[in-house]
């Protein structure tokens, strides 16, 4: 490997690393500010001949040198293409030097966050593109918008031939991609975006015949125009689709029940956790009530089980609890039986601690049953809150639920640690 090849290979690795995080960044941003990005590819095994791939999954791309050409009507186009392609391959987006490199902030934003390869629009486009030849041959996908500028009305304008001459010159595969929805999300000149779905429809990859560049340009444009005429598909994100399936299946009910049941005995994570995760996806359906009921019943049985075990001399394990939690719970049950479980709603002491102390005292079953009312109120309130919130925010959650849940689950241990630390005697 000579020094030029080594340089290209290092640069490719750097672009690959950057492309992966840029893809995640833009997939996240598009999930939040649009109804989500879906890539639609041909698939003969499906009944309608296509397969929809959410932004969280990898899309199939051809091997070898690749030039991606797409229609252009919005700044969101580059973001959508980077989000989809950057997961699979290193990618650079050809940009206009006269637009993006006029001021430092714009240049930094475009180069850093999108990964642009700036060329001049008034010079010899092909000569400038040839600077990327080694990188494309090494495997970097180069995205070009052959219209040369964003379409103001969303219609596909005539294509310039530069991208196709470049692809023919370096024998790269050309992949046409029709971008739908970005014009509705962020049209040219708009300062704020709208919440709409975005589709990328992958066309047929092909090599370009060097002797018929103009015909090839027209052919690829026609293919993109044809794909653009197909209706925009509005699919929920990967997280929502999966969670919704679980929520409507028996698994959801079982998980809610056993989680709450376990939490009443030894399980260190709160009963409402799976309930909240699942209930936001069910909409105005009775399934929401069923999920709340299963968590409530599980919690009641769990608390009663612990009370019974402790009052018969068996102490179940209590991970992530502290002696101070037991002291406070015992004190509250002794002095204010009616209010003890009300305090438990927000104070962070696990319900199993109260159940344990109820067995130690011991409370009678009827006393325990009355004391547990706030517990049921809490589960019902949190469940109903999640149910309502899921309905009101479903427009946003459909594309972001996976992200929201991942962030919540990642941060949960810190919250748990803070709560346990609060109740630790220092």
């Amino acid at each position, binding site marked *: 490997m000579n020094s030029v090849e080594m340089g290209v290979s290092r640069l490719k690795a750097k672009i690959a690393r950057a492309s992966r995080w840029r893809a995640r960044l833009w997939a996240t941003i598009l999930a939040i500010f649009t109804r989500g990005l879906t890539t639609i590819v041909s698939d003969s095994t499906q009944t309608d001949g296509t397969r929809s791939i959410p932004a969280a999954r990898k899309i199939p791309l051809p091997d070898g040198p690749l030039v991606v050409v797409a229609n252009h009507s919005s700044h969101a186009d580059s973001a959508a293409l980077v989000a989809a392609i950057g997961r699979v391959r290193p990618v650079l987006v050809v940009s206009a030097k006269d637009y993006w490199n006029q*001021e*430092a*902030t*714009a240049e930094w*934003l475009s180069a850093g966050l999108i990964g642009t390869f700036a060329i001049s629009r008034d010079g010899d486009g092909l000569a400038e593109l040839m600077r990327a030849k080694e990188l494309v041959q090494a495997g970097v996908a180069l995205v070009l918008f052959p219209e040369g500028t964003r379409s103001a009305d969303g219609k596909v304008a005539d294509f310039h031939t530069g991208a196709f001459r470049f692809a023919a010159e370096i024998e790269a595969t050309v992949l046409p991609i029709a971008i739908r929805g970005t014009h509705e999300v962020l049209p040219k000149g708009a*300062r704020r975006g709208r919440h709409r779905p975005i589709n990328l429809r992958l066309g047929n990859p092909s090599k370009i015949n060097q002797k018929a560049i103009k015909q090839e340009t027209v052919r690829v444009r026609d293919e993109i125009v044809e794909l653009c005429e197909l209706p925009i598909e509005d699919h929920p994100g990967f997280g929502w689709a999966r969670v919704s399936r679980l929520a409507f299946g028996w698994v959801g009910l079982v998980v809610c029940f056993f989680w709450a049941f376990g939490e009443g005995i030894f399980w260190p994570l709160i009963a409402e956790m799976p309930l909240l995760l699942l209930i936001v996806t069910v909409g105005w359906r009775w399934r929401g009530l069923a999920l709340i009921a299963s968590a409530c019943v599980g919690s009641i049985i769990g608390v009663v089980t612990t009370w019974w075990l402790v009052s018969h001399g068996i102490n179940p394990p209590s991970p992530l609890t502290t002696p101070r939690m037991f002291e406070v719970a015992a004190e509250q049950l002794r002095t204010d039986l009616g209010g003890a479980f009300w*305090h438990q709603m*927000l*104070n*962070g002491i696990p319900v199993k601690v109260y159940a344990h102390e109820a067995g130690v005292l011991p409370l009678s079953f009827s006393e325990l049953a009355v004391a547990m009312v706030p517990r049921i109120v809490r589960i019902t309130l949190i469940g109903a809150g999640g149910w309502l919130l899921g309905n009101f925010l479903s427009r946003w959650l459909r594309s972001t639920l996976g992200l929201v849940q991942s962030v919540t689950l990642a*941060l949960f241990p*810190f*919250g*748990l640690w*803070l*709560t346990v*630390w*609060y*109740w630790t005697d220092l």
Partner: protein
Amino acid sequence: MTNKRVSRVTDTVGRWAFRVAAFYFGFMTLQWFAFRGSWFGETPTILASFFTIMDALVLTLFTLFAVAAVAAQLKPWRFSWHPWAAVLLNAGSIWLAVDVFSWIFAK
């Protein structure tokens, strides 16, 4: 005459840095009163843990955003007041957060 106005992109970044900082300062003030005034009882540990984590994340993000908005004005050496106000508001929010959560968790 030299143009001392900031460009459109820098201006937009600065304005948004200010808007989000102002919004969160208001929200942080509400949290301060809620916890200091014991609106959620004497031991609101679950809510305090939740807001400690959320505030730490959001304030870090917004402060970085405000600092970046200030930095974006340095190279062209053209200034608007928005990013500076954003930095001040974020500093205020951080002070409120540290004050209220150290008070709760130091109990």
